[in-house]
């Protein structure tokens, strides 16, 4: 009984998580970390060719930080709290501001462990990061249907078309080993990160195509109802798939969250065109997770239709079984959900591309332009970011960004690293507007962490340069 309750609870949590997902929402880009790349060890995760200035850095579980990004594209606090002329929450305005496709996404990464060692011309890092990505997308009519009812004239043709509904949730742990080094006498750096992925849970509903239509006209809506659901799949794996198994045992929890393997690859490069101009590019998350067949499950819900235009009063008077009820029972009885188990499947990571250039304004200030794109379902979703960076050695680094998407600047980001010896504090957000004006916020993006950093290659190189008369280049390992 208790096991059943726990199982239900866990399943509920997974369902909730699955409902925090969305596709196509540019929330995963971590531009501001790119801007802090010189002092933020985790920036190496974005481009393994970036070599931080620290000689040695590490982050411990619970301290090295997390990055949470939750976003949606259809409402904000101002809308949700607005009042109509009667003092009621202005649901009409909220609904009017819904988009045709409404999306919610939640992406979080928690650094379990980070270890980075800087050589004179190279940087090697080992990291363990837990990631949860969840996305859901739903059509405007879905909310209209719930809020306004099926007879609302705002539902075009009385149609609730759920064809644009989809959801996807992935939880995995990434164990990465990266190495970057200078080539071409330091004019260029290249890097690669090989990632071993451990999939924990996966669930998705793709191409959910359901329609509920209320027939009528402008004067009256409700003549009849028709529901049409095309075949769709609910695919799950890991712990999410194991929960569908009737023979699920507690010992399956550990196995199901650890038995899914995958690999990923990050590639990066930087090129110093001149003393002031530098180009950089990286491709992230090229890879896949192969979900263990033992815990892979696919529920195929067959297509079904049901039409309702009222009860037959003659049947009612005769005391007969109502044919509408019989028809509905027949639909339900014929709804044989096909379950496919024991078939492993792979899911690819969402690949991302960063490419840009920086211009060194002064010794401490730089400006950058970064192009970001996601590879999602064969499409490229681009965004262009302008970045200002102020760096005072390894002590203080500040970045401010403005991102342009769909032809307009719609987001700002900022962040800083502050080295308080012997640890470094990181605070950053890729969505400054939401912090500055929470009433209109559509997203929460926040990075916080404490890294332990030692040494400064910049100082060492500088001193080495100053001591260039020495035959042996020395590197200062003192705490900066």
């Amino acid at each position, binding site marked *: 009984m208790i096991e059943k309750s726990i199982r239900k609870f866990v399943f509920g949590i997974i369902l909730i998580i699955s409902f925090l997902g969305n596709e196509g929402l540019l929330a995963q880009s971590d531009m501001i970390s790119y801007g802090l790349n010189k002092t933020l060890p985790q920036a190496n995760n974005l481009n393994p060719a970036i070599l931080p200035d620290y000689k040695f850095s590490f982050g411990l579980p619970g301290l090295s930080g997390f990055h949470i990004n939750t976003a949606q594209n259809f409402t904000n606090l101002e809308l949700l709290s607005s009042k109509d002329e009667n003092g009621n929450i202005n*649901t009409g305005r909220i609904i009017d501001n819904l988009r045709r496709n409404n999306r919610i996404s939640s992406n979080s990464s928690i650094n379990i462990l980070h270890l980075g060692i800087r050589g004179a011309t190279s940087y090697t890092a080992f990291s363990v990061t837990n990631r949860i990505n969840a996305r859901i997308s739903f059509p405007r009519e879905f909310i209209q249907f719930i*809020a306004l009812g099926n007879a*609302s004239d705002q539902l075009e043709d009385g149609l609730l078309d759920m064809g644009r509904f989809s959801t996807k949730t992935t939880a995995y742990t990434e164990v990465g080993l990266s190495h970057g080094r200078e080539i071409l006498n330091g004019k260029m750096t290249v890097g690669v990160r090989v990632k071993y992925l451990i999939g924990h849970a996966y669930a998705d509903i793709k191409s959910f195509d359901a329609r509920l239509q209320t027939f009528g006209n402008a004067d009256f809506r*409700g*003549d*009849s109802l028709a529901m049409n659901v095309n075949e769709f799949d609910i695919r799950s794996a890991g712990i999410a798939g194991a929960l569908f198994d009737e023979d699920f045992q507690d010992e399956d929890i550990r196995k199901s969250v650890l038995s899914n393997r995958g690999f990923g690859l990050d590639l990066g490069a930087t090129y110093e065109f001149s003393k002031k101009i530098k180009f950089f590019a990286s491709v992230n998350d090229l890879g896949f997770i192969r979900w263990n067949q033992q815990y892979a499950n696919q529920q195929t819900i067959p297509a079904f239709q049901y039409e309702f*235009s*009222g009860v037959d009063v003659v049947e009612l008077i005769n005391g007969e079984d109502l044919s509408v009820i019989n028809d509905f029972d027949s639909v339900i009885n014929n709804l044989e959900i096909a379950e496919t188990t024991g078939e492993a499947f792979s899911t690819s990571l969402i690949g991302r591309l960063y490419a840009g250039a920086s211009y060194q304004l002064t010794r401490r200030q730089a400006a950058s332009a970064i192009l970001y794109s996601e590879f999602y379902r064969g499409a490229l979703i681009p965004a262009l970011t302008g970045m200002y960076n102020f760096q005072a050695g390894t002590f203080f680094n500040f970045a401010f960004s403005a991102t342009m998407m769909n032809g307009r600047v719609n987001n700002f980001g900022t962040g800083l690293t502050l080295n308080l010896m012997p640890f470094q504090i990181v605070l950053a957000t890729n969505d400054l507007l939401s912090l500055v004006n929470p009433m209109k916020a559509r997203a929460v993006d926040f990075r916080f962490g404490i890294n332990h950093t030692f040494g400064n290659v910049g100082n060492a190189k500088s001193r080495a340069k100053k001591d260039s008369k020495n035959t042996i280049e020395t590197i200062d390992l003192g705490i900066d």
Partner: protein
Amino acid sequence: MKRISGKSIFYLAFMVVISFGGCYSELSDIKFENLKWSPELGVPLVDSKFTLIELLEANADDIDYTTDSNNTIVLSISDDSLFSQSASDYYSLSDQALDVPPIFLTQDEIEEFNSTGQVTVSRDILVDYPNQGNLDEIIIDQGRVETQVEENFPAIVDLSFSLEDPSNTAFLDYNNEFNYSAGNDPVSTDEYADQINNIGFRFDGDPRLRQIMFSFQISLTKVDQNLVFGGNSIDLEVGFQDLEFEGLYGDLSSQDISTETNTIRTDFLNDNELINDIDYYFENPQFRMIFTNSMGVPIRFDVNNFTTYKNGQQTEQPINNSIELESALEGSATRTETNFDANFKNIINNTPDSVSLQIDGVLDPEDVSNNYVTKDSEIRVGYEINLPLEFSLSGLEINETVSLEGIDPQELQYALFKFTSENSLPIDLNFRADLLDEDSALVMNLFDGKFLAGGTESQPATISDIIRLEDNPDTNSNELDELKGVTRIGIRATVSTTNNGSSVVRITSDASVQFNLAVQAKYNVNL
């Protein structure tokens, strides 16, 4: 490049803090309250397509229906035992007493008794069962045999006897010991009765087939006296009583059939208080009388007249028709059907309140000698009215009131009821629904108009209308609020055939009514 001063950074930080503080102060003012949920729901309620036959199946158990060769619906009202009587109402078995001779001892038996003090005697006696009238055979279904025994032997008498019918089946056993004490009166009596079943006697052949065998066993024991020849006897009185026959065969007597004046109801519409006077005309009504005889006796019925009653006035319509039924073979029945369509058309189209039918008759009118009846034999008179729905109708008005506990619309903002009818029946239905308060005063007229319009199978008539109840904030008109005072709904439905019953229409089995009702409503919920 100009160096950024600490002062600048301070001012920038100050501005950021101020602007952040201003923005976040709005958060404390947010109140997520007074959320009003006002869904509009549209739901179909009724989707029915029915023919008149389906409607009759649902509502009128006592009306049968068929279709004729033109596919016209024919309503049938019938009663197969408007009048029925069984053979036992006319014929019966009377009580009978058997002529049983007294039993005396022979000289030898007396001498044996006197010399030995004891004697045992056996006697078998055949006794005729009396014929009743001039019958050939009777079979007694059940009855009672009563015996009275009297003996006057001055001795102890142990008497037993049994009765057997002509098929040698015992149907009564008797046993008794008559004590005697010296010096006392030797006369003793005893009575005994028993039920009998299924005993038959034939009177038209072998005499043994009408005789009952008495078998006696008598044992006498001396007490103090010798016997003398012819001085003592055993006397039996045996009677058959409360007899019911299984069958009577032979010359059954003629009998008059006495019927009551039977009333055939044609007021099945007018019987309903909800329905006012109606006018109708049936083009081809049929009235058929069905006579059935399962007796082995010929019968003649004399159908004398119809008597109609309307508004307290009685009118007789003579018929004077004789119906002859032959005698039936045993286990079967003879049947005769006779139509009185022309008479009935006049009668029913005069919209009578009721109709009486006067019938006389006689069993075995020619007094033939070879008859029979059994306990299951009967005569039966039934009727069947067939009304092909080729008719006109007007003035059918149904008035009804439905009580309500009071309607509380609560937060209902509006309700729309949409009905649509597509009618291929040649019938118009006008409907009026009034909302009334407890003083029967009109609160609101809900609907007054045509609900169904007469159509044809090739050209159904369609009607669609919407009943609207609304709390209109723009006009301060709140029809829904008025519902609170409603305690009854007055309903008036007026039905007529097309053109208000001015011409004869025909209703076929395929003609149907498609009726749809749906509701659309908006409800306000404060969360």
